[in-house]
C-alpha cells in the first residue's frame, strides 16, 4: 500500500481502523515530498520537524484507544495566506517574509482541534493576486502534469501538492477563481463554498466581500469530507453565516442527477473557448444527461461585465485591506528613512511585487475623489445585475454547468507581460464570487498534449450538497480521477 496514493477519506478509514499510524503517514509523505518537491515546488515552508513530533505524540495518545475525529492524523497542506500559529505565513510576499502569526485562523483551529497534521504551507501568487503562482516572491510552482506549465493560481501550490500526492488534501482560498482554476489546471477537485459558509477569520484579506476558504482534494468525496470539517458559523467573522452544516458525505449517496435541472449558459460557450475544452465540457454535459439530469439552455446575460466589475471591486477592497502593511506592526520595514511618510512609502515599495502594486494603484484610483461613482459605484451596481442573473437562472435550474477556464494550463512566462490578458482568462470563475454562490471544479478530460481540463458546477447559495452530489455522480461514472501525472 502506498500511503500517499490514498485519498483523504481512504486514509482516514485506515487510520481509524488502526491499520496505519500517524508516524507512518508522516514518513510516507516525507519520502514523497523528498522525491517530487524539487521539481514541483509546491511548498513555501515545510513543517518537517514539528509534524514528526506531532505525529509521534498523536500515536502515543492513541495507544489502545482509537476514537478518532475526522481529520485526526490526516496530512494536509495549507495555502500560505491562512494564519497558522507559530508557523511562518508569508502570503508569498517579501512584505511578510518573516511573519509568524500569534494565532490560528478559525479553519486551522478546527483542524488542530481534530488532530490534523500540518505538512507545510503552500505557494501562491503574492497576496493571492494572480492566476499562475508566477507572482510569488519565492518563484513559481510547477504543474505536475507538465513542469513547463503553470499550476494555475492563486492557490497553485495547494493544487500542485494535491495533484503530485505531496499531501492528502489542501486548503486554498478563492476570490475570483483561485481554488477552481488551479484545481482545473492540475486535474484535481476544488470547491469554493458559498460566501459565509466558511469563516475567513485568519485568512489574510485580499477582497473581503469575495474571499472564501475551501478544499482542494483528490476527489469529490474528499471535498465533502474536508468541507464538513471547516464549515460553520464563527463569531470571529461577522460575515460567516449562521446556517447549520449538513452531513456532506451523506449527500453523496444519491449517485444520479434524477430530478435535477442543469443549466448550460450560452454566454460561456462563446469565442475564445479552446475547442478541446469545449469538446470535453460538452461531453460531460451529455454524461450529466445520461445520469438523469434535465439539460436546459439558460442565459447569464451580464457575463461579459464580470471581469471589469471584478477588477474594480476586488482591487478597491485590496487597496484598503493592504493599507495595514506599513512597516510598523509586522513584516518588512525599509531601512534609513527620515520620517514616517517615507517609512511607509519605501517599505511598501520594497515589500510588494509588481502585481500587488498594480492592484493597489488600480484600487486606489477607482476609489479616489472624482472617480468613485464612475468606477466603484458603477461596478457595485453592475454586481447587483450579475447577482440577479444568477437568481433568475436558479428559478429555472438547480445547477449550472460551465468550463472552469477557456484553455488548459498555459506555459510559464506566456502571459507575464500582459495583465489585462491574464485578468480576462478569469472570465468563467469570477462571476461566481461576485454572486457569492458556491461552485466546484473537477476533472472532465485531457487535452491532446496531456493537460487536464476542468468542469465547473455552480449551485444555489448554501447548495453545496446538490453540487457535491452531482459532481460525485459524474466522477463515479467517469474514469478521469484514476489518471495520475508522471512527474519528470
Amino acid at each position, binding site marked *: 500500500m502506498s500511503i500517499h496514493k490514498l485519498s483523504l477519506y481512504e486514509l482516514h478509514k485506515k487510520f481509524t481502523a488502526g491499520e496505519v499510524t500517524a508516524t507512518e503517514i508522516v514518513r510516507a509523505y516525507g519520502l514523497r515530498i523528498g522525491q517530487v518537491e524539487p521539481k514541483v515546488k509546491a511548498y513555501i515552508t515545510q513543517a518537517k520537524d514539528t509534524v514528526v513530533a506531532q505525529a509521534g505524540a498523536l500515536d502515543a495518545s492513541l495507544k489502545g484507544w482509537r476514537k478518532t475525529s475526522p481529520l485526526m492524523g490526516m496530512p494536509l497542506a495549507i495555502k500560505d495566506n491562512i494564519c497558522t500559529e507559530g508557523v511562518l505565513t508569508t502570503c508569498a510576499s517579501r512584505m511578510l517574509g518573516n511573519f509568524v502569526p500569534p494565532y490560528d485562523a478559525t479553519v486551522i483551529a478546527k483542524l488542530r482541534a481534530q488532530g490534523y497534521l500540518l505538512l507545510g504551507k503552500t505557494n501562491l501568487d503574492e497576496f493571492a493576486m494572480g492566476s499562475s503562482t508566477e507572482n510569488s516572491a519565492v518563484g513559481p510552482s510547477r504543474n505536475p502534469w507538465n513542469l513547463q506549465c503553470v499550476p494555475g493560481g492563486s492557490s497553485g501550490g495547494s493544487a500542485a501538492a494535491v495533484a503530485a500526492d505531496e499531501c492528502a488534501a489542501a486548503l486554498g482560498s478563492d476570490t475570483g477563481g483561485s481554488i477552481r482554476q488551479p484545481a482545473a489546471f492540475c486535474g484535481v477537485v476544488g470547491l469554493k463554498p458559498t460566501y459565509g459558509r466558511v469563516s475567513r477569520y485568519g485568512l489574510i484579506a485580499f477582497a473581503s466581500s469575495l474571499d472564501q476558504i475551501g478544499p482542494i482534494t483528490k476527489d469529490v468525496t474528499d471535498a465533502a469530507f474536508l468541507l464538513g470539517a471547516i464549515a460553520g458559523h464563527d463569531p470571529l467573522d461577522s460575515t460567516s453565516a449562521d446556517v447549520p452544516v449538513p452531513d456532506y458525505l451523506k449527500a453523496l449517496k444519491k449517485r444520479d442527477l434524477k430530478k435535477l435541472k442543469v443549466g448550460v449558459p450560452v454566454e460561456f460557450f462563446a469565442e475564445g473557448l479552446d475547442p478541446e475544452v469545449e469538446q470535453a465540457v460538452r461531453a460531460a454535459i451529455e454524461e450529466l444527461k445520461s445520469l438523469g439530469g434535465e439539460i436546459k439552455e439558460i442565459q447569464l446575460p451580464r457575463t461579459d461585465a464580470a471581469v471589469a466589475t471584478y477588477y474594480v471591486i476586488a482591487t478597491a477592497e485590496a487597496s484598503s485591506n493592504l493599507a495595514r502593511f506599513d512597516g510598523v506592526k509586522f513584516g518588512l520595514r525599509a531601512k534609513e528613512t527620515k520620517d514616517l511618510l517615507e517609512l511607509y512609502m519605501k517599505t511598501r515599495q520594497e515589500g510588494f511585487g509588481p502585481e500587488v502594486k498594480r492592484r493597489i494603484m488600480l484600487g486606489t484610483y477607482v476609489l479616489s475623489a472624482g472617480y468613485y461613482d464612475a468606477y466603484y459605484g458603477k*461596478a457595485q451596481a453592475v454586481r447587483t445585475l450579475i447577482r440577479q442573473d444568477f437568481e433568475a437562472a436558479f428559478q429555472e435550474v438547480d445547477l449550472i454547468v460551465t468550463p472552469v477556464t477557456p484553455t488548459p494550463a498555459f506555459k510559464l512566462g506566456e502571459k507575464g507581460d500582459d*495583465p489585462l490578458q491574464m485578468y480576462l482568462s478569469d472570465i468563467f470563475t469570477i462571476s461566481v464570487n461576485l454572486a457569492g454562490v458556491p461552485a466546484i471544479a473537477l476533472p472532465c478530460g485531457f487535452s491532446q498534449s496531456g493537460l487536464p481540463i476542468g468542469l465547473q458546477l455552480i449551485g444555489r447559495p448554501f447548495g453545496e450538497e446538490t453540487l457535491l452530489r452531482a459532481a460525485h455522480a459524474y466522477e463515479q461514472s467517469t474514469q478521469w480521477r484514476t489518471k495520475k501525472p508522471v512527474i519528470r
Partner: protein
Amino acid sequence: MEITQQEVEKVAKLARLELTDIEKAAFAKQLSQILTHVETLKQYDTTGVEPTATVQGQVNVFRPDIARPSLSVECAVANAPESADGFFVVPKIIEDRER
C-alpha cells in the same frame, strides 16, 4: 481612458507607494488599458439599481461588551520590525521646535 504619469504619481502618493520611473511609465500604460476595459460597464443601464456591498444578506453583528482574553502585549509586538517596552517604535512624528 488615458492615465498620465502625473495621475500615476498622485495615486501612488495616496496609496503610500513609492514608485520608480520605470514603474510609473508601465503603470500609466497598463492602468490605461485596464480602465479602458472597465469603461465597457457604461453599456449596462444601472439606473435605480441598488449597489451590492455584500452578498447573502449579511447584517450588522453585535456582541456583549465584555472583556475577554486577548493576545498578550508581548505577542502583539513580537512581529514588529522595532519595538521597545511593549510599544511599536516609529520615527519621530512631532518635530522639535526651536525655543
